Structures are given as C-alpha cells and as structure tokens.
C-alpha cells in the first residue's frame, strides 16, 4: 500500500445564497490549493461528491468541471455521494499508481428546497417513499428507539447540542454557535417529538475541498501530513424497519476493519446531522468521550452542508493533525436514511 495523507483543506458555508454551485466552488478549491502550495496543473486527479437531487437537475454535477478548468485535459471523476466517498475513490486512485496528488471536493446547496423531504426520497420507492415522510421524522424514529432502550437520554442529546454550539464559536463557517445551558435546551418544547430544535441540524450552502497526496509528495506539501492509516465503508440494509437502528452494524464493521480500537483516538469528527446520531455512532465506533475530543469543529449539527459535511469531518480531523494538536484521529461520514452507510478514516501524524 502507498502512504497517502491529507495535506490541506478549505471550507465554506452560508445559510442561503443565490450563487451558483460553480461560483461557490471556485474560491474554496483555490483556497485548498493555495493552502497546499499546489498549482492546478499539478493535480493528478480531481474527485467530486454531490447529489443532483439537491438542485433538481440531472447531471448538474458535470458543470462543476467549469470550476476546475478542463484544459489542458484533466482526469476527474464524480460520485453521487458525500465528498467523503470521493476521497475514498481518490485514495484508491493513488493506490493504483495512476496519481500522486488529488483534489477532492464535496458541495451542496441545501437552501433551494426542503432538503429534509428531498433526502427522504432515498427510501424504498414502493413501500416507504410514497408516504411522503421526511428525514426529521425518520431521525425521530431512530432517536426514540435509542431513548426507549435506555441507550441514550434526552439530556445526552442536549449535551451534544450545547457542546457543538460552544465549539462552533471557534469555527468561522459554523451557521449556529453560542453558549447555551443544557437545562435551557431541555426546557424548550419538542418541535417533532422526540426531537427539539437543538437536535436538528442547521442546513447550509457550501463546499469542502481537500488535497491528498502520496509519500514524498505529501511530505513536500505539508510539514505534518495527516497520514491515512485505514479507510473503509460499509452499508446496512435499506429499509429502516429491517435493520439494527441502535447498533449501526455498518459503522461497527467499518471501525473494526480500520482497527479503530487498536490505540487511543485523540479526536473523532463524527458526521452526525442529528444529536442522537453522534451518540449512536460514538458507541458503534467504540469512542470513549472521556479520552477522545468529539467534533471540535462543532460538527454537521452546526453546519450541515449536504454532500460536503462528511468530507468536512475527515478534513476537520486531519486539520488537528496538520496543526500538531493531535496524533491519531478519526473522520467519519454517513449517508442514507438513519445512518445506513458509514465510512471511517483513521489518520495519524507519524
């Protein structure tokens, strides 16, 4: 296996903008390249994660190439997934020896429709999607199951929200931030029982871009690259009534294959748009909140840019290695209703 590392990243997020996806992409891609000290022509492979359902235009992702510059010809690919899966593809591309550097990006405009309803179109098209449900209703079903089982409490969920908003104060692209007490959060009404407003993510328009590189190329681009030691993704059955919503088996399997439990984890960035999801994924990955800093960026709860928020978790975890504040970290990403599919990426500074 070739050693591959994250060497630079950049992010943007706003609540709503009339900028086109291309206009949103260009500055963030430029910033990631500048942070890496890499020229466009030095990028061997470009890999993009996005979802055409967000803008309601088939093949709309093709226009993103305008933000890359396609002359002289470039090598690029796209996954209809969060950018974290584009990073997985780029990592494989580098493993094949076809590329030494890659720019990976994920982007989404959440403001153009009720994305909680749009994302529910991922459900089974015959027995679930026709009911017209939404992602908040599904999250509520999963949260209540965990609450009923005594695996989590409403206070645990409020603590996730309070900590995320506090951490978000230091994140310039967070959409929600502030000091708020757990008791005040719990005093609020449930907007979609069992969920309160603080359990539901702040949706955003934006981009995350990440530069990864192999071996000596990575060492030349960053003084302390975040080396990808393991990366794996697994999927559970589609229908939410036919799988273990509390145990999240696909996250357990991905963590096992990545050897997550083999050593301490300094930082875990968990892709959890809803508060209970962070708690369930933390359990599935075997994260000990006493020794691991969870979501120091504030997480997807405070800035949920669809199709970028998972890649952002890998980037945010990598940034703590790049800046020398952590040695062994996890970036996690999820897709599909109720944590159906899970990706785990373990990175180390040495």
């Amino acid at each position, binding site marked *: 296996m070739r050693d591959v590392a994250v060497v630079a990243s950049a992010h943007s997020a706003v609540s709503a903008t009339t900028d086109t996806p291309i206009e949103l992409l260009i500055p963030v891609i430029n910033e990631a390249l500048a942070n890496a000290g890499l020229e466009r022509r030095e990028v061997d492979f470009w890999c993009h994660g996005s979802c055409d359902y967000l803008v309601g235009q088939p093949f709309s992702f093709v226009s993103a190439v305008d933000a890359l510059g396609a002359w002289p010809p470039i090598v690029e690919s796209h996954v209809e997934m969060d950018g974290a899966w584009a990073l997985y593809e780029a990592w494989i591309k580098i493993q094949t020896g076809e590329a030494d550097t890659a720019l990976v990006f994920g982007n989404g405009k959440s403001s153009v429709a009720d994305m909680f309803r749009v994302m529910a179109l991922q459900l089974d098209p*015959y*027995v679930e999607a*026709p009911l017209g449900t939404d992602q908040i209703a*599904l999250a509520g079903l999963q949260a*209540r199951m965990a609450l009923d089982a005594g695996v989590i409490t409403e206070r645990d969920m409020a603590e996730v929200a309070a900590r995320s908003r506090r951490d978000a104060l230091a994140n310039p692209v967070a959409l929600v931030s502030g000091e708020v007490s757990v008791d005040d959060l719990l005093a609020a009404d449930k907007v979609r029982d069992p969920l309160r407003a603080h359990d539901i993510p702040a949706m955003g328009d934006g981009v995350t871009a990440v530069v990864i590189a192999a071996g000596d190329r990575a060492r030349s681009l960053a003084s302390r690259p975040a080396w990808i030691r393991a990366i794996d993704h697994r999927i*559970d059955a589609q*229908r939410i009534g036919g799988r273990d919503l509390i145990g999240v088996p696909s996250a357990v399997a991905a963590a096992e294959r990545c050897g997550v439990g083999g050593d301490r984890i300094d930082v875990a960035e968990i892709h959890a748009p809803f508060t209970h999801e962070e708690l369930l994924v933390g359990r599935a990955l075997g994260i000990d909140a006493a020794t691991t800093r969870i979501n120091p960026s504030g997480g997807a709860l405070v800035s949920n840019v669809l199709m970028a928020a998972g890649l952002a978790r890998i980037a945010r975890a990598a940034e703590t290695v790049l800046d020398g504040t952590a040695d062994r970290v996890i970036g996690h990403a999820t897709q599909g209703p109720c944590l159906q599919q899970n990706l785990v990426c373990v990175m180390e500074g040495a």
Partner: protein
Amino acid sequence: MTDETADGPGYAIAEDGSFTAPLTLAYPYARTVGPTYGTFLTGLAAGKVHATVSADGTVFVPPAEFHASTGEALTQWVEVASEGEVVSWSWESAPGNAQPFDRPFAWVLVCLDGAGTSMLHALDVTDPSEVRTGMRVRVRWAADAEPGIGAITCFEPVTTGGAS
C-alpha cells in the same frame, strides 16, 4: 416592486432582484416491481399481508428479496396479521402535501404479529399523548384500493374495550 416577468403561481422577484420560479419534478413512468413486491403489493389490495421467510426463521414485512446478511434468496412466503405493535414513533407537527394526513399525526414503525421486521407508516392519532411505544395498532384498509402501499390508509389504535 414591479412584477413584469413574474407570472403564474410560485413565480416571484425578490428584494435583491433575483427571480424565483417553481420546479416540479415528476417520474411519470410505469415499471414492474418484480415478483416479491408484486406479491406483497397485490396482497395488500386484497387485505392480506404477505411476508418472506429466511432459513433462520426471520419473517420480513415488507418482504425482502434477499437476506441482507447472508445473501440468501427469499422465496418462501407466509401471511402475517394486520395487527401489531408500535416499535417506535415520531410526531409530524407540520404535515405537508402527499402525506397520509393533512393535520398532525404520528409516524410509526410497526411490527405486525408474526413479523420479524417493522414497517413504516402513519398512525391516526391527533395528539402525541395518544401514542406510545408498545401500543397495539391495526391496519386501516383503503376501500377499493389499487395494488400498492396506498392500500393501507394508515394504522389505527386497537381499543381493548372498557374506559378509553
């Protein structure tokens, strides 16, 4: 604000001059659902709930074509009850179009008697105090339904008699 270019429902020009127009996506194709869902969805129109069974005895409702863990093709069928238990629920406080009710209701995962998995649907209650995990519910069948999930209007609470 002038409205020269905006006409028709949903068309508008915002304060910043940007023009917004509705975009309604549709999927107007007919396609076969295959033998597994075909059996299930046709059964619903006849007021019956058909389920597939795996070698380990798991009963799948709605039926699965394959066992997700073993890959076993599921071709054995049983019929299960149209009554069961709420496994989980969440409240719909802001119902929208194309949902089972146009007023607040509960989304439920229901495990029908005899089933090993649960199915998603709506429960006909009007206040969160009327629903709890473990409560008994039954299918309310649509009259003269076409084959499809729409043959189930919703679930409704099973009242056991006596004081409500």
